């Protein structure tokens, strides 16, 4: 599988996660989000940007609890619950938001 972007094919795995994380950029994120039927709002970007910052530091996506806590600090109580994250990313914040942020899929019993 791949994303056709700016005249090039950007490779992804079977499920649409980028195989080369360094090829990610915000425009490509829009394209991935479109495939996921998600229209990116500022709130979506808050999540995606936090995921990328966290990944830069820890080489893994943050736990849901870490994500909601960071959002709570930044955006307040209402925009930080797990439920709110599911409204933004209906397939689940961990997997769908990671895909759009160009991060690997969280694996395991999650």
């Amino acid at each position, binding site marked *: 599988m791949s994303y056709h972007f700016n005249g090039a094919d950007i490779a992804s795995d079977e499920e649409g996660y980028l195989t080369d994380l360094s090829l990610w950029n915000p425009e490509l994120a829009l394209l991935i989000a479109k495939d996921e039927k998600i229209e990116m709002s500022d709130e979506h970007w808050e999540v995606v940007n936090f995921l990328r910052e966290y990944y830069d530091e820890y080489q893994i996506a943050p736990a849901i609890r870490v994500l909601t806590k960071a959002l709570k600090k930044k955006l307040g109580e209402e925009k930080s619950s797990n439920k709110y994250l599911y409204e933004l990313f209906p397939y689940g914040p961990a997997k769908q938001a990671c895909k759009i942020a160009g991060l690997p899929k969280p694996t*395991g019993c999650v």
Partner: protein
Amino acid sequence: MDAIVPGSDADRLDPLEIPTLCPGAMAASQPWGASPDHQKALGFPGELVDDWQNVAIAKMGELLEKNRALRVYLDSCVKCGACTDKCHYFLGTGDPKNMPVARQDLLRKVYRRYFTFTGKYFPGLVGAEELTKEVIDDWYSYFHQCSQCRRCSVFCPYGIDTAEISMAGREILDAIGKGQKYCNEIIGKVHTIGNNLGLNKNALRSTLEGLEEDIEDDIGVPVKLPLDVKGADILLVTPSADFFAEPHVDGLIGYAKVFHAAGASWTISSYASEAANFGMFIGSYEQMRLISLRIREAALDLGVKRIVFGECGHAWRVAYSFLNTLAGPFDFLDQRYPIPQHICEYTWDLIQKGALEFDKSKNDHIRLTYHDSCNVARATRMGDQPGGQFEIPRAILKTVCNHYFDMAQDTIRDQTFCCGGGGGLLTDELMDIRKKGASPRMKALKTVAEDHGVTHMAAICAICKTQFAKVMPDWGFERDSILSVHQLVSNAIILQKPKQENDDDR
């Protein structure tokens, strides 16, 4: 067997209702294949080998030599039919190849052709068949529609365990280069990073510190989640989902509060930061052994006296049934305690001693039922009484929660269903079979919700929790209606605010 549904009428959901047969309905359901890198990392061929037929038959021969039970299972079926309607995947799909006997026959027909006298010379008389590409394809589909939950084996008069057969099937598939991505990628991560999730030490430490802050903000008590503490008494080995997902993390917080209340010296290990052992799912003794050895090494390195397992169904099966064989002897641990011990045994022991205090009203907004996780129910035990694996989790729940109701008797305890995501099936591309396989459990839950106003269900398995969080919304429940058992403990436990100890002596 009829469902025991009090006051049942025609409209009520019957979890055990036999579906209309739909031959081939699930033939196309297959998991993603493992990449060559994931395969090779575990010592399997990267892709389908040229002489796959010979390799597969040789592997089957090797398994038959090593595992006498497998040969007995393949020889002893008398086609009585007792198992046919016992698999949740059959009940959910109607595909006759999901009848346990038919699933076994996928392997049995090949076994007969190559390993029995009659099958070699009169194959047509005994249903013996050549190993063809089509058979391999069927194996890949239908051995990944078995969650190795053993429900069928409870009803088999010969005790044939389809789990062993699907494990053997998957092991042969790995040997010819046809592995499953989900399991094999994850096992690779355990070897390189220490857990299924790929959570490295720094991220784990930061996550645990964050949880300590959360708990203190929440209840004003500095409950600790220690990492890599040498000389601690207890090593907690828990599924890495407990560090990452909801509601798993609330269970982890519950364990920490119990340890805190007991004044226990305990630690998590970053090296053995995973209770799960997917080596069992792929039927690989060697992978199961290597993963188990990490726990032994961590216990030795940290100098602990006890090993306690967190809420993970198949981990407890590996731990309870095989850990000593795989990674023992554990003569360096304190022999006065079970080796290993389940967190539910640990908590129940403290409750019985009167060492924990609860405010049950904290769970009054919850009307609860309990899902017996298949591996715990049918492959393990807890405590020192038969059936402890059923009674102890319920006893804990009834201690911390005022409103508890069981689901129908023929859907719980040793007759429990798998959640639908066990045995290495908890992956997105198998969502269809996962949802269909969950339907018997969901029907039983709907009934107890209608009869008793049940709002939530608790479980002690990371896979169950993730699976139900995904499936329950389809049945009219909130995503967070699935709870960790120790989450309910966490809600109700009373901890003393002032002084807390974090030293290593007891």
